[in-house]
């Protein structure tokens, strides 16, 4: 057993008590430069001049930290989109908090010039819950990945969604563990060979959107890292949704799982293989808008539109994000390449009272009923008696 766990007799440092000589070694540097200040680039944001009045720009949301994802990583595009959207939200920087867990994506908060908390593996939704419940005025963002959010943090993922706090959760799905160098994740395809599965993955993958819908999420969407315009609009919609919003982003890990989504995200094939969902619009895709989705009994099917089939856009399923019943959203979440075009966009957007509002109401109600708590009354109650 280590004896310095209890502190004071850490040999050279601390002799017999906290005020003894040893501490001087530490305190001497308390307000000084400390060791090797040049070892990492950058300095704290604070101390910088306050942002100029007027609308903030993308640059105002970039921290001074050197971004350290692998060159070519999809994370750069996502960071870029989020930073682009931030000024349009009209929220002051100090009211924004980015919370993350562990993994490549979870470095995200360091690069945002807002408040940030890089927490522990899988637990970002729980940390964010405490932040949002404590201060509902803050705009709270959770950045997670397929391993962080769905594997080690699967439990918190589900409960954060069903509680419907007004959190914005962005899940970077690259179908691989990147930071630990290439093991399979809960979204890796069945049979995939990775470092930890040299003979192929033998567990069945989960679809993040299915899980989100099943967990009662009130806003569910999907986008693609390299489709900056679409991603930005989805991020903006997510931010504006009052209640929890969940956004899955297909993100390419060019080191350990390069091209995972290329077969439908690659620019030239994208129109034919991706279905852009739009509220109130028929589900039509293709460069020439010549294919659509319609119901065949209880199943969706892809149909050819045009004079040959006599089918038009009006025969296709019309997208409605506001349906309370999650069945259609769930069905869409299960559509996959190659049988279907891969749907992206907003799957579901419904209103429900938020956890933080309900909590605040209960507190207000309690105060209305019994008055603001008085310490004296609290302590001087119960089974009491007086000794003269």
């Amino acid at each position, binding site marked *: 057993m280590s004896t310095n766990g209890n502190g004071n007799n850490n040999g050279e440092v601390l002799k017999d008590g906290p005020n003894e000589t040893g501490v001087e070694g530490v305190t001497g540097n308390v307000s000084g430069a400390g060791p090797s200040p040049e070892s990492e680039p950058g300095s*704290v944001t*604070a101390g910088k001049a306050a942002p100029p009045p007027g609308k903030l720009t993308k640059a105002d949301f970039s921290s001074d930290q050197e971004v350290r994802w692998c060159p070519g990583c999809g994370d750069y595009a996502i960071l870029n989109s989020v930073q682009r959207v931030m000024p349009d939200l009209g929220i002051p920087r100090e009211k924004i908090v980015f919370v993350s867990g562990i993994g490549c994506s979870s470095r995200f908060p360091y690069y945002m010039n807002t408040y940030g908390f890089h927490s522990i593996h899988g637990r970002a939704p729980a940390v964010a*819950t*405490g932040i949002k419940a404590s201060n509902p005025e803050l705009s709270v963002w959770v950045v997670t990945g397929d391993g962080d959010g769905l594997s080690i943090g699967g439990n918190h993922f589900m409960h954060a969604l069903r509680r419907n706090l007004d959190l914005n959760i962005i899940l970077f799905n690259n179908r691989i563990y990147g930071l630990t160098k290439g093991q399979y994740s809960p979204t890796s395809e069945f049979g995939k060979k990775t470092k930890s599965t040299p003979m192929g993955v033998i567990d069945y993958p989960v679809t993040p959107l299915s899980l989100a819908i099943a967990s009662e999420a009130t806003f569910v969407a999907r986008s693609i890292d390299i489709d900056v315009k679409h991603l930005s609009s989805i991020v903006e919609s997510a931010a504006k949704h009052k209640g929890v919003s969940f956004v899955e982003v297909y993100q390419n890990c060019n080191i350990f799982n390069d091209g995972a989504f290329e077969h439908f995200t690659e620019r030239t094939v994208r129109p034919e293989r991706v279905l852009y969902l739009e509220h109130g619009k028929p589900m039509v895709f293709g460069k020439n808008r010549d294919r659509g989705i319609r119901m065949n009994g209880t199943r969706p099917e892809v149909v050819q539109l045009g004079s040959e089939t006599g089918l038009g856009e009006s025969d296709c399923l019309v997208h409605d994000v506001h349906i309370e019943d999650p069945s259609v959203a769930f069905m869409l979440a299960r559509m996959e390449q190659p049988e279907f075009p891969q749907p992206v966009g907003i799957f579901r957007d419904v209103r429900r009272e938020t956890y933080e509002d309900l909590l605040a109401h209960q507190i207000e109600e309690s105060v209305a009923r019994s008055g603001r708590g008085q310490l004296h009354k609290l302590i001087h109650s119960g089974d009491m008696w007086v000794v003269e």
Partner: protein
Amino acid sequence: MSAIIENPPAARERDVEEVETVTIRFAGDSGDGMQLTGTQFTNTSAIVGNDISTLPDFPAEIRAPAGSLPGVSGFQLNFSSRDIRTPGDQPNVLVAMNPAALKVNLPDLEDGGTLLINTDEFNKENLKKANYSANPLEDDTLKGYRVHRLPISTVNIRALQEAGVKLSRKEMDRCKNFFALGILYWLYDRPMEPTLEWIRAKFKKNEEVMRANEVALKTGYNFADTTEVFTTHYKVKKAATAPGKYRKITGNEATAIGFITAAELAGRPLFYGSYPITPASDILHELARHKNFGVKTFQAEDEIAAVCAAIGASFAGHVGLTGTSGPGVALKQEAIGLAVMTELPLVIINVQRGGPSTGLPTKTEQADLFQAVWGRNGECPAIVVAPATPAECFSMAIEAVRLAYRYMTPVFYLSDGYLANGAEPWLVPEIEDLPKIDVQFASDPATFMPYARDEETLARPYALLGTPGLEHRIGGIEKQHLTGNVNYDPENHHFMVLMRQAKVDRAAQDIPDVEVYGEPSGKVLVLGWGSTYGSITSAVEKLRAEGKSVSSAHLRHLNPFPANLGDVLRSFERVIIPEMNLGQLCTMIRAKYLVDAVPFSKVKGRPFQIREIVKKVEEYL
């Protein structure tokens, strides 16, 4: 029997014997209401001015099969005309509502002790469930005890029927605990009124049940008064306690209102993240009742979410509090490490129970001290405090929050099952006498550095989310001194490890010296922490009355230790450390002070008896 209720015949003259201290144990099936009966007797005893101390002892199963041995629930109460600190070593009186209760509890009853037995339950079936091959009422099992055989169930039901109570037989039978309570109220000369008031308030929505319980209590009292079962009844005079307002309080109640008070003193709202676990859940229940203080209780999906949410709340400026028992702490430790790294204030309540693993959920133990001090990866120091009595749970809650803010660090608050459920009188403080808790927030963007240090405490500045210009990032990766940037430099890491340790060590400057009860030096010092206080102090008091050179000291701060502890230890020839573990504090004391301290371990899920400690100390005199 109705005649007894309506017009009790004049009480016959009985001998009245005055006694100083009585220990009663109520024991019955877990459905028999023994906890309630014990609590009512306790409240009434407190109201008449006795000193009190209680030990509820209930099974982990909510309702084990009726009449079975695992289903026995007990409540031990010590009441006295003098200052007492424990629920009593051995019951003088045992109330056994069925054969299983007798079987489980008889070995604890003192020789020659008094037995009140509900004979109605001693049928063939119940005897079999209690593994009695022969009826103990009929052989010499009870030889040497003063046995009162009372047909409680039948007399109770008959009385209720005659009083015209319109309830089913089963419902009427449920009132028999109040019948038994009535008997004891007569036997120990207690007023019935406080309990009658309680019954009226509790069952105001169900008048028939209210009346049934009232009748049961009164009938029990009158039954004892008019029948000649008892030749003597007893008086326990008021205790000579300091004047003032008192409240009967359990450790969990005191913990809950202590943290509400601490948050009010700090001027910050309280956020309690918790996951239900025995024996800590009552804290969650109690806090959830006080939303009008702005208290936010969050029942999380698991222990990890509970502590993480509390950390998030702390980051957002609330008093971040999480509470659990040992297994829950094991799950929370990684997150507590995060709070150490991010240097956020956080308090972790651990109401310790028997371990390891699920262990003994409803029994007490002190075996999580190492877990609190050393239970995380890396060099990960946290402050550790521990209340010594149920009432002290209040003041130590304030102390925990005070230290968490002053040093920007997680603080462990180690209660245990015995403190949590045990009750004692609490001399209620005045609000203006409570310490202030100073919470300072950084505000100046020009000088703000997330990991700069306060010269005195080494605490880093606390920036409230929402403050313009102080936007910064924290996290679990090693921080660069001053800037808080991610940093992997070996020199910086070494420096920061020392810094975090030095900061926690610094707290010693802010905690009171440990006090010695008895002479400041001598042959034996009995050192303790947590709920062993009562037994240790009473044992030392007894030995000192016999002229023995024994003193005691009790630690409320376990990391860091009070600055004078080394000097205190070295003033005695021998240090004995009784603990409900295998010598955890003892190991720490030996390692840190090179004192040849002796452990005295008891890990039975039960508190130390006074006489056990007396006997142990005598070995060294």
